């Protein structure tokens, strides 16, 4: 019967082409608008590391105390988003997690070997060797530096494929050296393209950016007095003037992540952090009880409000728009079906059951939904193109259609239209078979 109903639906839609076009256009425009914003929303709301997002935890420690009121962003939990160097060293030395890393964003001027070329600026992430296995970065050549390199402040770097192409013209560059601010660094690994979006591990700097081009040992960057190029927040003890003073201050500028694969390890790490903060209180550094927090990747992204208000507003607006479009299509379907009440009455007299009429009309709504969905897909592509021309480069990175979005668009269109078609269809099924006789 499905193919019969499908044929009837197509025939009926062809019959009243203006009404049909209006319905499909309404559904299509609604789907186009809502899918355009949903695509951006989904890119922002993306889980950047789905296989491990429940095992990676951002660490927060209150090192400013309840008296302090100058926390940027006015966090209700009065926790800083980053930690101080003192705590970074404390937590790294404790080694209480399966893996843990401290890191910060810095940068340098890279002088190419070819003296004809001008030096250029590079973004650097100073971190520990465990960064790579923790975040499962793909290597094109070589690999992470060793734990000994971390210990020895070694002059080693991991570079991205893009930088490798730019500086060495591609190829396996492991063992070659690059010059950063007049110091030579040995390349130990080249990363294949890796750009988690959002850049969950450092949301203060470039949430949707391209990330660092060079990774180097945290110890080496600190030893070389390479200052933070990212967000710094200072309060309370801002330290003595100079680099050493900064390292001993309560300024927060370091991101700290722990890998905790099991529930037991998570609980143990929570306990450890609390003990650590209590120890700081006992030693007189903190004048307040322990206040610490760990959050996995999804919790961290939610806490940091990664999906911007603008996108939330747009999603809200566009889905309300979709609702209007569906109400519209519903009105038109109702008009169409009531205009056909005569035919429906005849069909009923000829033996069509209520469910047969119901099925026939619902399939017609589904066909409208399908056509609207296809139109909506085209409009979404157009809408995303429009967004790319309107928005900044960073925001434009969020305007790419994934295969999942195509499925969502079609399913949403068919489901929503069928849902909107339920009432008109119900009305159609209520048409009495005697209608024809009575109407005379």
């Amino acid at each position, binding site marked *: *019967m499905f193919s*019969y109903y499908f044929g009837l639906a197509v*025939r*009926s839609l062809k*019959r009243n082409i203006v009404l049909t076009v209006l319905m499909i256009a309404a559904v299509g425009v609604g789907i186009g608008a809502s899918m355009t914003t949903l695509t951006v929303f989904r890119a922002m709301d993306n889980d950047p590391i789905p296989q491990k997002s429940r095992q990676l935890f951002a660490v927060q420690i209150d090192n400013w105390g309840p008296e302090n009121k100058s926390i940027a962003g006015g966090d209700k939990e009065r926790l800083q988003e980053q930690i101080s160097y003192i705590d970074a060293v404390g937590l790294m030395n404790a080694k209480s997690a399966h893996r843990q890393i401290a890191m910060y964003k810095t940068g340098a001027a890279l002088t190419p070997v070819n003296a004809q070329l001008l030096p250029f600026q590079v973004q650097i992430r100073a971190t520990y060797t465990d960064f790579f296995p923790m975040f499962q970065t793909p290597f094109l050549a070589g690999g992470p530096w060793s734990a000994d390199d971390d210990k020895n402040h070694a002059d080693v770097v991991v570079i991205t494929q893009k930088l490798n192409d730019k500086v060495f013209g591609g190829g396996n560059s492991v063992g070659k050296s690059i010059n950063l601010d007049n110091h030579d660094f040995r390349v130990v690994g080249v990363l294949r393209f890796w750009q988690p979006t959002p850049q969950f591990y450092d949301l203060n700097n470039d949430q949707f950016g391209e990330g660092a081009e060079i990774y180097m040992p945290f110890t080496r960057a600190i030893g070389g007095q390479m200052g933070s190029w990212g967000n710094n927040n200072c309060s309370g003890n801002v330290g003595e003037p100079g680099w050493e003073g900064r390292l001993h201050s309560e300024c927060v500028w370091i991101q700290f992540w722990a890998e905790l694969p099991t529930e037991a390890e998570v609980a143990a790490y929570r306990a450890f952090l609390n003990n650590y903060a209590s120890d700081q209180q006992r030693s007189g550094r903190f004048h307040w009880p322990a206040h610490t927090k760990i959050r996995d990747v999804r919790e961290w992204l939610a806490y940091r409000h990664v999906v911007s208000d603008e996108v939330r507003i747009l999603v809200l607006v566009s889905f309300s728009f979709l609702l209007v479009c569906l109400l519209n299509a519903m009105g038109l379907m109702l008009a169409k079906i009531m205009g056909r009440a*005569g*035919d429906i*009455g*005849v*069909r*009923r*007299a*000829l*033996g*069509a*059951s*209520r*469910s*047969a009429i119901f099925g026939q009309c619902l399939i017609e709504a589904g066909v409208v939904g399908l056509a609207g969905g296809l139109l909506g897909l085209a409009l979404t592509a157009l809408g995303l193109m429009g967004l790319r021309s309107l928005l900044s480069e960073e925001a434009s990175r969020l305007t790419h259609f994934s295969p999942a979005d195509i499925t969502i668009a079609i399913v949403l269109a068919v489901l929503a239209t069928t849902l909107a078609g339920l009432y008109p269809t119900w009305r159609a099924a209520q048409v*009495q*078979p*005697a209608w*024809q*006789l*009575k109407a*005379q």
Partner: protein
Amino acid sequence: MLKMTHLSKAYRTEVVETYALRDFSIHVREGEFVAVTGPSGSGKTTFLTIAGLLEEFSGGEYQLDGANVRGLNDNQRSRLRNEKIGFIFQAFNLIADLNVQDNIDVPLRYRGFNAAERRRRIQEALGRVGLSARSRHYPAELSGGQQQRVAIARALAGSPRLLLADEPTGNLDTQMARGVLDLLEELHRDGATIVMVTHDPELAVRAQREVHIVDGQVVDLAAQPRLVATANANT
């Protein structure tokens, strides 16, 4: 074939209850051609809608082809209607969007016949009404008489046990009406059971038997000689 005993049908509005049929009894045997007549508002159409399982009735019994139809649900009634009854309407009620063969196809689809069976039945029905050449025409391209013949073909295609005709010639001119009536008589000769509702006494006499309804009840025609006489006078 069709047997109603003490059947009643009430229409309820907020204030009053009016009976369209009251203590209504009729028996149509297999192979009969019965005309149901009566003045406007007498309950003819109500009788037809109930006989055709288009509406439920309030009281009494109705047996169709030996089966009691009282209390059947909508689906069961749709099924019975589809299998046992063929309708011929005054306004033809062809579906304008569908061509001739697709119109005839409608009840066959709901019957669940396969494609070959449906094709065979459509051809046969069209052959019987003499419109084989018009199978791809749309209703709007046919004359009124042709449209009614298509409607008859549609009613016949499912081999119903009972044909119900409601003023089948009401929308046709005399010549076309004659053709349609000839066709009905021919069907009757071939064994079809036909119940025809009409207000036209001239038509009624072509039937084997006439049942007259007044105020929702069957009236003995013998007691109403003048009506018949008038009808005869008009012939």
